[in-house]
């Protein structure tokens, strides 16, 4: 496996305060993700896996530790710098899809591309390519309400990869989907790494879905406790 690291985080720590109570969902986590890897972060509810993903994506700031994406340290960036950085370097997929209901699938995918200095033709090419990759070219002009949950999540994946980011961070992408749709989404994520060299970090509590990953990291009480290679891919 290439050791060209896309994600490098060390000693990440995040503490929240609720009144007098301090909660530390991420406590000194170290994580490296190589280019082209599909890494799953697993753990029980409340173990801090989503918080860890948010720290990796610059959605939240760590109290301690550092995080680099593609060799750029994001921990010291301002909110504005983080927004600009995320626009070109990080793609997000959320559990609840978060598509804009008044925009069609195509328009939703085009949205992050509008932040970049691309010509209209280039944006169209990248949007169509992303739609093709997730197999939704024929549903491009449908509104989210006209799509199934699985299709909505595939649009969300297309939106995340349309800008060709260095890494895609997916937070429980199959959490709101039925079994078949969930497997289809994981198949797409796996294809994106295997055939297109994308780097993806997936948070899941489902061991079967985690099996699609090259590596599975287990989180317990904010710490990465064990690591094992994925299984499905090896079988496949």
């Amino acid at each position, binding site marked *: 496996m290439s050791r060209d690291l896309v994600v490098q985080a060390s000693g990440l720590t995040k503490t929240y305060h609720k009144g007098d109570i301090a909660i530390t969902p991420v406590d000194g986590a170290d994580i490296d993700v190589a280019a082209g890897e599909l890494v799953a972060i697993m753990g029980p509810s409340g173990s801090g896996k989503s918080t860890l993903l948010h720290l990796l994506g610059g*959605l939240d700031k760590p109290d301690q530790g550092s995080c680099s994406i593609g060799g750029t340290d994001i921990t010291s960036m301002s909110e*504005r710098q983080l927004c600009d950085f995320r626009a070109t370097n990080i*793609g*997000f997929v959320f559990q609840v899809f*978060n598509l*804009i*209901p008044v925009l069609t699938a195509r328009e939703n995918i085009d949205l992050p591309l*509008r*932040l970049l200095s691309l010509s209209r033709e280039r944006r169209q090419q990248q949007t169509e390519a992303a739609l093709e990759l997730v197999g939704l070219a024929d549903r491009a002009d449908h509104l989210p309400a006209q799509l199934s949950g699985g299709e909505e999540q595939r649009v969300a994946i297309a939106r995340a990869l349309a800008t060709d980011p260095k890494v895609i961070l997916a937070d429980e992408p199959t959490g709101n989907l039925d079994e078949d749709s969930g497997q289809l989404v994981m198949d797409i994520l796996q294809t994106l790494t295997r055939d297109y060299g994308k780097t993806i970090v997936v948070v899941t509590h489902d061991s079967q879905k985690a099996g699609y990953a090259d590596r599975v990291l287990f989180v317990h009480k904010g710490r990465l406790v064990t690591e094992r290679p994925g299984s499905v891919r090896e079988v496949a």
Partner: protein
Amino acid sequence: MLTKMAPFIWKNIWRNKRRSILIILGIAVAVFVYAALNAAVNGLTFPIKGTASSQILNVREAGRAQVLASKLPEIYVDRVRAIDGVQAAAGVLTDIAIVGTARVHIFLRGVQPDEYRLVEDFIVDDIAWENFRSDRRAILIGHRLQSQLGWNIGDQIDLGALGIRAVIAGIVPPQGVDLENHLLIHQGYFQNNRGLEGQISYIVVRPAPSASPSELRQLIDDAFAYSPITTETASAQEFAEEIVNDFLDFLVYLKVMGVIAVLITMLAAANGLAMSVRERTREIGMLKAIGFTPSLICGMVLAESLLLAIVGGFVGLGFAWTIVGTGGTAMEVLALDRNILTVGAALALGVGILGGIVPAINAARLKTIDCLHVVG
């Protein structure tokens, strides 16, 4: 960057059609109320102000808040005329009549024709003038009364409430001193019908070219300082404005109501936008996650607000314009000028900016991670 998001902003506006339409209608009504009220004030005050000159002086009874309540003895005219620096003076007995279902306001001026012509530079053709001065039941009318009431030369009019029947001898055009919706009637005839013999309301004074109007004002008031009825002299312009203020005070209240309507609309628009932002909290979090900066988010929300305001302002002003333009006689009194349109448009934009700025800043300040944790 904001222009690239224009299609997205436009679709956001129509996300909740009912709310957006209500906001637009609210702004439209507020702008319409503002424009219509100011047009009415314009319509009613301009004819009075338009007739007034800053050189001409008016003398009325001191301490009378309303010009209709001013009573001066007719003999004061001769005393004023005798004051050094007065070129000409004419007494005027005034009253107001409201005519027709359109409730057109007519300002009557009872004057002695030859005297009055020496103080006011209105234009009227020789035949009309001769007919007016030779017949004590003849009247001259401002051109607005012709257009508002359809009156024409030769018509006999009946101002029943004032007990006046008169024949229109001529129409005074807008050139020169514009009589607008004023009417000139023989003072003697007017006094007889009203039972006000020997009484006038005020005196119009034309200062001599060498005289200083401000000094002359003082001289006139000093001349009557020890008389049973003291006087208060002001320029015709000031006088006209006082008449406006006296008679049209209620319009000020209407204007205040208009301002209140605009403020309420602004609050409603702001609340509507704030609701719209609250409903989209998670979405805003997603937008920030994929790279939308706080300033872009702020700009987008503000742009939504401004677009709603522009549409609302356009509808409101368009409606006001349509009514003034096609409302017929009843709306002749309205005067919707460029100034009102400009201020109305600025008002709509102000509502858009002030109504949208707080929700926009709040949206920009939302923490990405907090937005994404919002349920629903």
